[in-house]
């Protein structure tokens, strides 16, 4: 991209623009594209979700505005804009307004570090994974601001629930990601994606596998367990059913959004869908190879001679990423269609008593994986270098599989025995005689 702008400004127009101007233009362009993509994605996602969930519930869903209802989100947006903006008299008005921004902006930032295609990361730096999760927690502050400033008990309850939930699920999410960092040896999202070429096993582990862009981390025991834990945590963080306790429209109206109306409410809505999109995209990126897929690396290799092929590779990569992202969003909707909401104690129990220990064990297996594959005599494991790469990979695969399976079974046992030790409603009793715990 820089080369293109450089060519346009300096060669074609002969302006002698310094490098910083080119960089500035490049970033402005990328930011504009991102800011255009985000609301568009949000509109698409709301429509997508409503149609999909409707069909899951044997309904048709919105299909009146435009062809098959595709313009429905636009109609909704117009409705949002024209609604009266009500701020409660007792509200803290400054905070009330500011909260919307604090919630929306971080979600936009999250998209800036995603690798959209080969070499298409808007901002690429070494710790982008850390940045992604750090910035995503900022919106928790916005939620508290929104919940507190409205001066409404439901908002405050919702905000407290939201923050409690976000904090307790941030932990397993980041721990499961940490396993990936150990395996790939990088904290840069684009490097993690690049490491997922290959077929079943990735190229850095087994150099000789054909590069079909299918060396997804999901196909390793560590990656699989990390994926399961991460996706559950992502559901909780994105406040999706069955973890939509902060909003719980049947219990506390709409949680922290209760006192918002019009476009301010729309901003929260936007933030939520963008967050969900970002979480789906990062799941696809970290575990399902992001833009990796059959054909992308071949096309970019051909791009060395012909610029057209690298553009094609980029386009194919974006298509792969979006397909995977939409698949995960579909899964989110699917889960929403299937399961009821958890109770708050079940939510906390799942997070702290099940996911957290599981992800800790997973980090241990990830360390074993990394040791089996990358370590050698320098680390005092000279016997490992005697094996060929295939053998090392097999050892890593089997040992981590055993550890993870054992850990999962054990944790299920522990958690379910704690549940069964609770007094139960005795079967076949008259209601009058039942003693509830």
């Amino acid at each position: 991209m820089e080369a293109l702008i450089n060519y346009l400004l300096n060669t074609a127009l002969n302006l002698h623009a310094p490098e910083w101007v080119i960089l500035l233009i490049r970033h402005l362009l990328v930011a504009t594209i991102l800011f255009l993509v985000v609301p568009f994605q949000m509109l698409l996602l709301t429509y997508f979700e409503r149609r999909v969930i409707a069909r899951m519930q044997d309904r048709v869903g919105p299909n009146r505005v435009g062809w098959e209802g595709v313009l429905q989100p636009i109609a909704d947006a117009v409705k949002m804009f024209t609604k009266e903006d009500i701020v409660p008299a007792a509200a803290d008005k400054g905070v009330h307004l500011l909260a919307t921004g604090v919630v929306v902006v971080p979600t936009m930032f999250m998209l800036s570090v995603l690798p959209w295609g080969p070499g298409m990361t808007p901002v690429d730096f070494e710790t982008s994974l850390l940045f992604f999760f750090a910035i995503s927690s900022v919106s928790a502050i916005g939620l508290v601001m929104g919940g507190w400033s409205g001066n409404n008990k439901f908002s405050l309850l919702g905000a407290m629930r939201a923050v409690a939930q976000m904090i307790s699920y941030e932990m397993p999410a980041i721990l499961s990601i940490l396993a990936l960092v150990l395996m790939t040896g990088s904290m840069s999202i684009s490097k993690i994606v690049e490491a997922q070429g290959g077929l079943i096993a990735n190229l850095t582990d087994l150099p000789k596998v054909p590069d079909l862009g299918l060396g997804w981390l999901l196909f390793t025991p560590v990656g699989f367990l990390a994926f399961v834990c991460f996706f559950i945590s992502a559901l909780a963080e994105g406040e999706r059913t069955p973890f939509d306790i902060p909003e719980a429209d049947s219990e506390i109206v709409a949680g922290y959004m209760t006192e918002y109306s019009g476009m301010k409410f729309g901003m929260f809505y936007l933030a939520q869908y963008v967050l969900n999109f970002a979480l789906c995209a990062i799941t696809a990126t970290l575990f399902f190879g992001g833009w990796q897929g059959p054909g992308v690396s071949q096309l970019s290799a051909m791009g060395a001679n012909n610029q057209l092929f690298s553009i094609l590779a980029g386009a194919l990569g974006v298509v792969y990423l979006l397909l995977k992202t939409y698949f995960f969003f579909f899964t989110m909707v699917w889960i929403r269609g299937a399961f009821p909401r958890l109770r708050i104690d079940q939510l906390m129990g799942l997070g702290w008593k099940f996911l957290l220990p599981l992800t800790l064990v997973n980090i241990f297996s990830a360390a074993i994986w990394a040791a089996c594959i990358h370590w050698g005599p320098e680390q005092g494991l000279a016997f490992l270098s005697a094996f060929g790469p295939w053998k090392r990979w097999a050892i890593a695969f089997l040992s981590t599989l055993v550890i993870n399976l054992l850990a999962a079974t054990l944790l299920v046992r522990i958690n379910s025995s704690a549940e069964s030790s609770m007094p139960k409603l005795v079967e076949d009793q008259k209601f009058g005689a039942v003693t509830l715990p």
Partner: protein
Amino acid sequence: MTVKIEIQRGSAVPLSRRHPKFLGQGMLKGMEVVLDHWFKSFGPKLENFSQTAGIFTTEYPEERLKLAEAYRNLPILLYDDETGQELCTSCLQCEKICPPQVIHITQTKDPSTGKLVLAAAEFIIEYDACMGCGLCAEVCPFDSIKMDHHYELSTADHASLTMHKADLLRPVSYYQSLAPTFWEQTKENAYKKLQNTVKRRSGLLGIAPSMVGKVQPPETKPAE
């Protein structure tokens, strides 16, 4: 497999869930059911309500459900197709029974004799306040007032909802098309009574305004 559970008042129903074979079996099963519904929703529309998966939405303006014969919306008045004679005798039964009192009838006087004739000069139903209870149709001894099946009456013009006799009159054949079996049951009685009524009418009195000119007024003069 369907399990029939008989629930008695005051007793707890034991729900036995078999122990899952593996972790998350129940959840996966639930997701499978939902996905099954999703796939089936792209299939053909359901025909009857015993089918449980798939779309059964009737998309209203384009598709309409067939209305039952006993469906009732708001009342209309009937007249005979051939003679144009209205069935109503202005006996005021319906006006009396109407709970919200929205029927207003003016009885006809013979201009030459000044005596009452068995026909309504004006018959007003305020459609805006009629609640569609159907009591008027139940009470009418002459099967003159019947409940219509037409329900798309919404309008921005409030005054147009005050329906006068000309707006209310429909031929018997129209009602027959709505409720053939009901009309079959009551037809004989209705026509017998209409004949008696017609004997006591004269000239154009009691003939539906839209039919005036198209039919011959009855020759029989009312008995003095």
